[in-house]
Every structure is written in structure tokens, then in C-alpha cells.
């Protein structure tokens, strides 16, 4: 046996195969794709460029193209094919020779084109601000959003509700506003809530709030400071010898002043020292530990906080010059400045007095929310609940963990969410089920009838709340109007999800506010741009009712509230 070699044929086929394999091994990213964040003003030199950058950013990052296509039948390529020539025909962009009328005509056309393109966008969080030339030297910024041509129904605005809802509530009504920093009244992060039992049926407890910032009520974050750490309580930061042998003190030539200032500073130091190990403070520490284990704001905790504050307020103000008025001389100033600095170091850094201040203030300020709502819910003394989310436009997701999960008794799927993944317009992850989780410490012991009040301005986290709570069973009903239909999630870091964008593009030619995800309800229905259908529909307020709720709150009849009270009373 011998082997026969077919040289020519092998050579030809071998070369072909080699070409095939060589081509296959070429680098994938031969032509880098421009990410939205990489566009600059140099990419926008014409209306056509303006449209193209907008189109491309949407193409890469928008999460609802599949649903969008199903709704209006137009795909994004068709938009490009239709509008790119239209924008290209607008020639005045950036040209200084054109007259104002021409520029204005082009501007109006461009705005109309953008409205036509953006109005059908179903994502109701989405908006984009676009800079458009107004004349030779000036630009205007115009805001576009999905559904911008739609008329919205009247709403039960929060400010109006604050006026008339009190008429429905009993003597236990509480209305509070506080910010992220305990004791500070004005801040860009605040929560205002109103709650109390319903006069007509005191078994029903009512709660409304202006935004999902209830997490600002969370006391746990104020309870874990070093100040409250027992191991730290006997540590001496500012030792007596630092005062006794202080060189700056020795430099005071007037012996009387020297002695007086020494006595005064030792007195201040010892009072602060005594305070940090005072029994009242130990009681407060103990109560804080108990709170962390139970999330119950007891009367003892509140009393301990108040006592600690009283003692604290009696302490000498070591950091105020007036405290040293009797001994302050040019010679003693150096020593006093040193003392204030050392005390600041000791009190502020080693004893974390700021944390203490925040903790006691927070307990006193936020106790009503716990003692009247969270703790009774957990205890089971609130039998029925009205959660009024009308005109509540949403807020922070962490409110789910802080509050909404307290109304959850079982783990169920309540929605599905997906994000972009790869580069294609339709490169989506699978739908990721979102599950409820009962609150670890403060949840309700068993299901209670809950009526969620909604209107056309209940958006985002309000809608998440409706979906989540309704997954718990038929004891939860929504009453009122359809919600707004804005359920997708927003992040300031869209790179985390390969979709969405929040921020400027092309050196401020655009500002995009685009969610990174798409959401569908537990039945697989997309509610974005549609809203959640209420279980019990109550028509939105008429213009006359809106006027009345604002101007004559005492006589205003809230039909949604009436329906909710009637419904819950029958349960």
C-alpha cells in the first residue's frame, strides 16, 4: 500500500480555506461605534446632524423599541428614512447669513418634526431637551417627551389634599415635613406626609405623602454611630494633663487669668466628659440597641432621647467665644483657641457628638411616624389602610424596602423587568422576575384590606407600589383613575445596564432623561404609557371640583375617598 498525493487540488482548496479562516480572525471592533457620551459639539453642525445624534442615541439606549413597534407600527429605521431627508432640507442651522424669518421657519419645522417623532414614545419617564437655533446668535432649549400631545385628566394635587383631607380624619391626624438631616427644615430632599384614622370608620387608617421619600423617616441609619458604641464610652480624648501642663497656658503672664482660664476649661471639659458617661445617655444607648433589634419606637426610647437632649442642651458651648468672655485676653486667646480646637477634635471626632445630635433629634422628630403608623401596622392594631398615592409622581426605590415591604406577607412575583444587553436595538436580557419580600422586622402580621387611591398623576414608584401590593391578593384594591404609565427604572449610571442615559450629550446640544429598563406586569402586560387600570374606577375630578377642593376645602367631597371608605367598611 502506498499513499497518493493530489497536489494541485489540495493547494487550491487549502488556499481558499486559509483565506476563510484569516478573514474570520479579523478584529471585531474595526470601526469603533460612538457612544452617546462621546459625541461633542463638532458632531452637530446641521439640523441633519442634530437629528442623527438624537436618532443614534435612541437607537443604542432606548429600551421599549419592541413594544414601540407593536404600538405604532413604525420602526426606528422608518423614522430615520422619513425624517433624515426632512432635517437635511433645513439649511439655516449655524449659518450667520440667513435672515431671521428663514431661521425661524426652519426652527418651527424642526420642532414639529421632533414632536412628531417623540410624541409616540411610550416611555413616560423619558424626556429630551434639545437646543435649537433661534436666530443668528441665540439658541433655545426645547423639551420633548412621550405623550406630549396628550391631555391629562385633573388630579387631586397634594397641596389641595392637605387642605381638605383633614376633614375626613379624626383627632389623631398628624401632618409632618422633615428633611434628610434631622432638625433641618429646608433641604432639597424632604418628605411631607399626612395620616390619621378616618372619622367615619376609625378602623380605617389613612396615609398620603408627596413623594416616595419615606425612607427619610428611617431611624436605623441614625442608630449605628460610634457614639453609641459602648466600647468607646470611657475613652478620654482630652486628658486633664493636656490642660495642666499646657505650654500655651504657661505663657499667660497674668496668674489670675491663667488660673481662671484653667479652671474654666477644666470645668467645660469635665462637664462634657461627664455627659458622655451620664446614665441618661446609657439609657438612650440601650434603647437604641433595642430599636435596632425590633424597629419599635417605644415611649422609653422617646423619653430617653428627650432626657439626653435636655442634658445636652445644658452643656457649656465650648466652641462659642462668649463662653470664655470672662477670661478672654490677648494672652489667653492662643490657649483658648487651642482648647476649642482640641475639644472639637475630642467631641466631634472621638465622641461623634454630631451623630448623637442627629440620633436624638431624629428619634424625637420621626417618632410619630413609627408610633402611629409603622409600629401599629406591625402590631396589627391598624385593621384597614387607605394608601393615597394620587398625584404622587414617585421617588426612591429604597422606599420599597423601608415601607412598602411592611405591607407584604408573602413572596410573589409582581412584575418583570428587562434591560438592554448588547448593541442591537433589540438586544434585551430575558425578563427578570421581580419578587416581593416581607419586611424583616416591621411587617404586618397578616393581610389587611388595603385601598390604594390612584389618579392620572400617580407615577413611577406609585405604580410600582400598586403592582407590588396587588400581587399579595384580593385584599388590595386600587380605586380612582388610571395611573400615569411610567414604570421603567432610571439610573444616573446607565453604563451599569447598557441602556438608558441621564445627562448631556454633544456638549449640551441634548439633555436625555431615559430609563434603562422595560417593565411588564405579572400578567405579562406592558403598562408603560397606558397606566394601571383601577379595580374600582372613579372618574377624575371635574374643573369645578378642582376649584372647590382648592378654594372651599371644608365642603369638598372627595369621591375617590368616599368610595375607598365605603369599600373598606364593607370588608
Amino acid at each position, binding site marked *: *500500500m502506498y499513499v497518493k*498525493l493530489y497536489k494541485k487540488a489540495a493547494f487550491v*482548496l487549502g488556499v481558499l480555506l486559509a483565506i476563510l479562516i484569516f478573514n474570520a480572525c479579523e478584529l471585531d471592533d474595526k470601526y*469603533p461605534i460612538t457612544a452617546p457620551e462621546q459625541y461633542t459639539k463638532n458632531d452637530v453642525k446641521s439640523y441633519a446632524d442634530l437629528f442623527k445624534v438624537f436618532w443614534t442615541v435612541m437607537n443604542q439606549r432606548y429600551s421599549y423599541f419592541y413594544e414601540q413597534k407593536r404600538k405604532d407600527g413604525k420602526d426606528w429605521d422608518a423614522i430615520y428614512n422619513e425624517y433624515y431627508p426632512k432635517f437635511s432640507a433645513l439649511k439655516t442651522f449655524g449659518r450667520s447669513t440667513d435672515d431671521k424669518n428663514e431661521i425661524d421657519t426652519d426652527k418651527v419645522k424642526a420642532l414639529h418634526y421632533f414632536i412628531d417623532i417623540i410624541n409616540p414614545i411610550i416611555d413616560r419617564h423619558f424626556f429630551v431637551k434639545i437646543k435649537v437655533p433661534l436666530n443668528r446668535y441665540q439658541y433655545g432649549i426645547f423639551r420633548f417627551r412621550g405623550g406630549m400631545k396628550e391631555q391629562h385628566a385633573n388630579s387631586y394635587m397634594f397641596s389641595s389634599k392637605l387642605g381638605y383631607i383633614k376633614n375626613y380624619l379624626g383627632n389623631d391626624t398628624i401632618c409632618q415635613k422633615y428633611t434628610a438631616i434631622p432638625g433641618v427644615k429646608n433641604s432639597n430632599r424632604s418628605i411631607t406626609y399626612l395620616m390619621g384614622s378616618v372619622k367615619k370608620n376609625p378602623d380605617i387608617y389613612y396615609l398620603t405623602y408627596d413623594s416616595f421619600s419615606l425612607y427619610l423617616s428611617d431611624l436605623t441609619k441614625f442608630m449605628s454611630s460610634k457614639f453609641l458604641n459602648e466600647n468607646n464610652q470611657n475613652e478620654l480624648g482630652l486628658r486633664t494633663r493636656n490642660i495642666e501642663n499646657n505650654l500655651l497656658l504657661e505663657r499667660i503672664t497674668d496668674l489670675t487669668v491663667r488660673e481662671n482660664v484653667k479652671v474654666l476649661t477644666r470645668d467645660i471639659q469635665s462637664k462634657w466628659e461627664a455627659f458622655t458617661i451620664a446614665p441618661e445617655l446609657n439609657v438612650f444607648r440601650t434603647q437604641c440597641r433595642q430599636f435596632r433589634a425590633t424597629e419599635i419606637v417605644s415611649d422609653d426610647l422617646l423619653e430617653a432621647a428627650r432626657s439626653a437632649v435636655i442634658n445636652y442642651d445644658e452643656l457649656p458651648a465650648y466652641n462659642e467665644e462668649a463662653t470664655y468672655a470672662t477670661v478672654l485676653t490677648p494672652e489667653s486667646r492662643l490657649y483658648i483657641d487651642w482648647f476649642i480646637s482640641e475639644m472639637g477634635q475630642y467631641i466631634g471626632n472621638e465622641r461623634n457628638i454630631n451623630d448623637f445630635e442627629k440620633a436624638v433629634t431624629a428619634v424625637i422628630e420621626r417618632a410619630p411616624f413609627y408610633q402611629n403608623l409603622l409600629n401599629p401596622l406591625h402590631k396589627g392594631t391598624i385593621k384597614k389602610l387607605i394608601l393615597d398615592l394620587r398625584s404622587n409622581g414617585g421617588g426612591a426605590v429604597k422606599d*420599597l*424596602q423601608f415601607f412598602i415591604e411592611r405591607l407584604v406577607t408573602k413572596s410573589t412575583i409582581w412584575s418583570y423587568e428587562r434591560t438592554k444587553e448588547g448593541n442591537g436595538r*433589540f438586544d434585551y436580557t430575558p425578563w427578570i422576575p*421581580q419578587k416581593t419580600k416581607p419586611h424583616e422586622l416591621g411587617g404586618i402580621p397578616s393581610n389587611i384590606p388595603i385601598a390604594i387611591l390612584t389618579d392620572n398623576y400617580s407615577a413611577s414608584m406609585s405604580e410600582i407600589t400598586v403592582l407590588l401590593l396587588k400581587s399579595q391578593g384580593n385584599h388590595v384594591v386600587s380605586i380612582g383613575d388610571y395611573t400615569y404609565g411610567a414604570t421603567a427604572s432610571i439610573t444616573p449610571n446607565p453604563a451599569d445596564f447598557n441602556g438608558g442615559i441621564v445627562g448631556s450629550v454633544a456638549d449640551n446640544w441634548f439633555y436625555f432623561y431615559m430609563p434603562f429598563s422595560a417593565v411588564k406586569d405579572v400578567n405579562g402586560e406592558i403598562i408603560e404609557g397606558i397606566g394601571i387600570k383601577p379595580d374600582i374606577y372613579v372618574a377624575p375630578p371635574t374643573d369645578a371640583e378642582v376649584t372647590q377642593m382648592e378654594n372651599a376645602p371644608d365642603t369638598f367631597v372627595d369621591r375617590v375617598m368616599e368610595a375607598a371608605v365605603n369599600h373598606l367598611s364593607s370588608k
Partner: protein
Amino acid sequence: MGYTYSNLNANLSNLVESKYSGGYGFGASLTGEYAIRKPVFLKTAVSFLQKNYTFRRTGSRLGWYTKYYNDFLSIPFLVGVTVLSSADKSQGVWLKIAGGTYIEYLMRLQRKGQYIALTENRYKKVSETYDFKKNENMLNRLGYGLQGQLSLGYSFKKWTLYGTSNYQYGLSDISMANTNKNMQKTIQSYMIAAGTSYQFN
């Protein structure tokens, strides 16, 4: 029957800490070969090929991934030559190379991944069989490409034992919605297999 190794060619240059990496799978073929004129032959087959790959976030975003398990029915049309063969027609060692094209059909796609469940604030594992009726990702089930093959075998009269190395270079975009060539996504796949064949005169 043998093993496959596949990857997705995709341009992710505008995405941060994102990459596709290759994955292993299983493959099986029923092959037919017809000698036109020595040493040239035509070859075709009906192949079941798993072309698996993984999308994953890397670096600081490590943790999110999707494993794609694609089951393809592939039909190659190859022309080849016998490079080496024994003088004894019915017995001995041989070496063949072949090249051509293939068409394929994506029968089934299963995705297994891990993602951040935002409202639960944790990673979550998800497994699903892709719904081609909805086809939300606008996947193109029909594909085509180029194929090359190198086979080494030993014949025992009518029966032959052989090993083969296969390479498929996808030319068709896996997405039916993409119009930008720079964003095209194609699959390339290797297969190493062993088999046996029977010669009908």
C-alpha cells in the same frame, strides 16, 4: 459526533465592560459524500450543532452574564478533494479537505443568566427558552455562512473511521432588525468530531 466551540462576533466598542466569549457545545452530523471525479467530491450533511456563547460584564460590573445555548440545524454544501489516499481504493488512510457554504436554522435558544433585580437589590438567576413567536430580540432564525473542513480517516473496505475538524464562519446577522453593518453580529463555530461511514458503491 463531536464537540463545538462557538463565539459571537459583535462590535461592543461603545459599551463599557461588556464582552462576548466562546462556549462549548455538542454536535452531530449525518453526512453524504459523492465522488464526482477522483479526487474531487461533493459533500453535504444534516447537522445538529450547538453554538453556544456567553455575554458578560467584566471588571467592576462583573456578575451580570447571559449564556446563550443555540441549537442549530445546519446543512452544508461542500466541495472537496482527497489530498492523500491509499492506492488501494478500498483500504487505507486518507486525508480530505473541503470548503463551501452552509445554511442553518435556529431551532431553539435557551438563555441562562444572572442579572441585578433592582427592586430586590441583589443578583438573580434567570433561565428561559426564547419565545420565537414573540421574538422580542428580533432574532433571525435562518442563517448562512462559509464552511471549511479537514478530515482524516482510515478505510476498512466498506467501512471507514475518521476524525474531522470543521469551521463555520457566519455571514448572516443574527438580528433581522440591524441595518448597520458595523453593528452586525455573526456566529463563528469550530467543531471537532469523530465518526464512521459506510461506502455504497
